[in-house]
């Protein structure tokens, strides 16, 4: 048990180092985007004087290194800064200004909600299908499952979204086609409104997880202990679920984590199609108007989500290995 704790702490430390490096990359990358907030907002009326004034007010005239450490200090104290786009220039930083945190928080929680709903459908479905595909490998079922999940992952997300809208909203009005959820909406209604985007995303992420589950299990079927299980006269289902699956967990967990990370960070298209107010849309909008504090904060949240999920996957894979759980 002690060694696991040590490994977890090590990974956690490494995760923090990675996050620090990523923060530098984000900052440098965002700040080397062409164009400039002051010029973008002033448009036609951008005289050199007014641009300089706004840049000075926002601290954009400071050297990059100074700005980076200011930003980092803010991040460490959970002060994500003030959104440029919502600034009240008459009363800078005071009443009327919206902080980045205020802007991101509701969007992030919406995204998390959608990701959770999707994961609750997709992960059990993928693992179950993967087990069945391994059990009935090379049969018609296996091929059909493979073909269906592969074609759903190969089609563009918006296409799958429109297909679902057509069948589940237009032809058979089961779910609403617009997911305009808002704060304070009752859970049931919220769930109903999120159903179509969640199903679309399910179609997108299931293939990976299912195929990895199938491959990881089949990979083990040639092991001597699987042969032994068969020679004990166990049923094929028991051989796979009881003897192969526990040893195949590590790769499966890793693919699940990658797909969950995708659900948090990469769902802009689905959000746009269903008008779902998630963090993806906010991110894209902020890039358009060069709202640097929001872009940076989103990037950092995405990076943290990736690192955290991978870390969790690592830890779970380690814990799933009896050699580490029960040292000699």
């Amino acid at each position, binding site marked *: 048990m002690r060694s696991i704790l040590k490994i977890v702490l090590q990974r956690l430390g490494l995760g923090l180092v990675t996050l620090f490096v990523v923060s530098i990359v984000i900052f440098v990358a965002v700040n080397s985007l062409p164009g400039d907030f002051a010029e973008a907002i002033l448009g036609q009326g951008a005289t050199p004087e007014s641009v300089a004034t706004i840049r000075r007010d926002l601290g954009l005239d400071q050297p990059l290194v100074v700005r980076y450490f200011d930003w980092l200090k803010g991040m460490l104290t959970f002060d994500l800064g003030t959104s440029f786009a919502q600034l009240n220039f008459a009363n800078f930083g005071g009443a009327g200004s919206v902080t980045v945190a205020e802007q991101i928080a509701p969007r992030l929680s919406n995204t998390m909600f959608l990701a959770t709903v999707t994961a609750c459908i997709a992960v059990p479905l993928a693992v179950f299908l993967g087990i069945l595909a391994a059990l009935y490998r090379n049969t018609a079922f296996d091929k059909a499952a493979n073909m269906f999940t592969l074609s759903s992952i190969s089609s563009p997300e918006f296409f799958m979204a429109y297909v679902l809208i057509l069948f589940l909203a237009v032809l058979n009005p089961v779910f609403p086609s617009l997911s305009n959820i808002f704060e304070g909406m009752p859970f049931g209604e919220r769930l109903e409104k999120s159903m179509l985007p969640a199903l679309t995303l399910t179609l997108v992420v299931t293939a990976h997880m299912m195929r990895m589950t199938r491959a990881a299990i089949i990979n083990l079927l*040639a092991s*001597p202990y699987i042969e*032994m*299980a068969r*020679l004990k006269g166990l049923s094929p289902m*028991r051989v796979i679920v009881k003897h192969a699956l526990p040893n195949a967990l590590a790769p499966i967990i890793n693919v699940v984590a990658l797909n969950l990370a995708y659900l948090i960070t990469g769902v802009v298209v689905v959000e746009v199609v269903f008008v779902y107010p998630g963090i993806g849309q906010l991110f894209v909008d902020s890039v358009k108007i060069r709202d640097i504090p929001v872009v940076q904060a989103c990037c950092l949240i995405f990076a943290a989500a990736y690192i955290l999920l991978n870390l969790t996957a690592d830890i779970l894979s380690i814990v799933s290995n009896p050699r580490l759980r029960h040292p000699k």
Partner: protein
Amino acid sequence: MSNLLTIKGLKIEGRSDETWNPIINGVDLTLKKGEVLGLIGESGAGKSTIGLAAMGYTRDGVRISEGTVEFDGIDLVKASAAVKRGLLGKRIAYVAQSAAASFNPAHKLMDQHTEGPVQHGVDSRAASTEDGIELYRKLRLPNPDQIGFRYPHQVSGGQLQRAMTAMAMSCRPDLIIFDEPTTALDVTTQIEVLASIREIVEEFDTAAIYITHDLAVVAQMADNIKVLLRGDEVEEADTRTMLSDPKEDYTKSLWAVREFQRPAKPAVPEGSVPVVSVRGITAAYGKTDVLHDVSFDIHAGRTVAVVGESGSGKSTAARCITGLLPPRMGEIAFDGEVLPADYRKRTKDQLRQAQMIYQMADTALNPRKTIGQIIGRPVQFYGGLTGAKRRKRVNELLDQIELEPSQYYNRLPSELSGGQKQRIGIARALAAEPKFIICDEVTSALDQLVAEGILRLLADLQDNLGLSYMFITHDLATVKSIADEVVVMKEGKVIEQGEKTDMFTPPHHAYTDLLLSSVPEMDPDWLTNLLEERGVDNIGDAAVDKM
């Protein structure tokens, strides 16, 4: 009395390159209740395939094409999967070669033990657990009350093998297939497992098919012996007849392998400088010392066998000599000259002097290079020969290892048999024109007849070229046939060393004695006598632990 198992005209085919090729060409076999049949033959003889077919099971890419396997009136070839599942584990059980690989690493031993009885509805989980503990006690596992609640990786190989025998017994089957159950074990551990298996099979009057390539082992275990060669039966007889009076030439040749013995060489002249001198080396992996103050000399034209169980430090000593693992203390001298500890600091000529031949010729040869390239590389690197000269030298080397150059020069390792691959390994070592060769378990992966050929070749090369060998092995029969001197190692220390003739005549160090007396002999009464001599609780590991 009717037969429990009757196999008639069994033909089995294996799939390779889209065609089905015969593996077993019509074998008959009968087994009565409580009878033990030994199946013996070299690798590729089809022993395991027959053993599995006796359970109505074939591996992927293998099929039963003809014949019947009748177990208690049921033809397992025609039976449905469900019928077979009802028999497997319950009435027919299997004990695999490597228990470490055949226990599921994710579950505790006891959970795997009780799985059969519970799934077959033979016994409740609680009752089966209790029975498991009882079986562990009968098989003399240490801590029988607790050992079942450990995971496989927490238990040693010999203990796992016994736990697997217990698992096979869990439903009290009528028939158990033992597939080389002691091949992967050290001699002292092997004895314990053999004794346990024999006892329990006798107690429950279980019939068994005992598959092995080791004659002496099968002599202890079986009532009858069937000899197989490339999928055909050579002959079958009861154990005593088979040992004393084999009919077929092939069987006789198998029996004769054990008789190869080199004549003793003259003693080393006083004051001569040894080719290799290992002086008080202590070496460590990480912070743990695995060698403690090891010293021995190897003289010109002589073979020093380094003997010990796995983990005794034999191979580590070899790594120190070659400079792969610089020792923490002590030094290595060649012809009286002390060498740098790290191979990277040695000159090309110093490197040339010591070559190695490996246990697994399969993995020691680059599968993508032809034989000509594999042997040509050291010829060029050490001898500086290129073009036609290099080719000529490679041909000479192939002649020396008795492989026709024109036939083998352009082949890939995958086109050679195991013994031929090992010969290429020898040629590659010779290419450097060394004085000294380390042979690391070079025959342990080979069948007895092939191994004997390799030993004879090494002996001839030594006579012709005056080579010195350090021969690492755990097989005392090999030591007997080829060594001049013996170094016995245990837990990283040299326990005893001296001339072979002295080592094989008493009195020895207690551990050497234990090793020597643990090597199975061809006498069917050997195990019985040994157990009587040592006492039931004082065999194998138990005896080692008491030292």
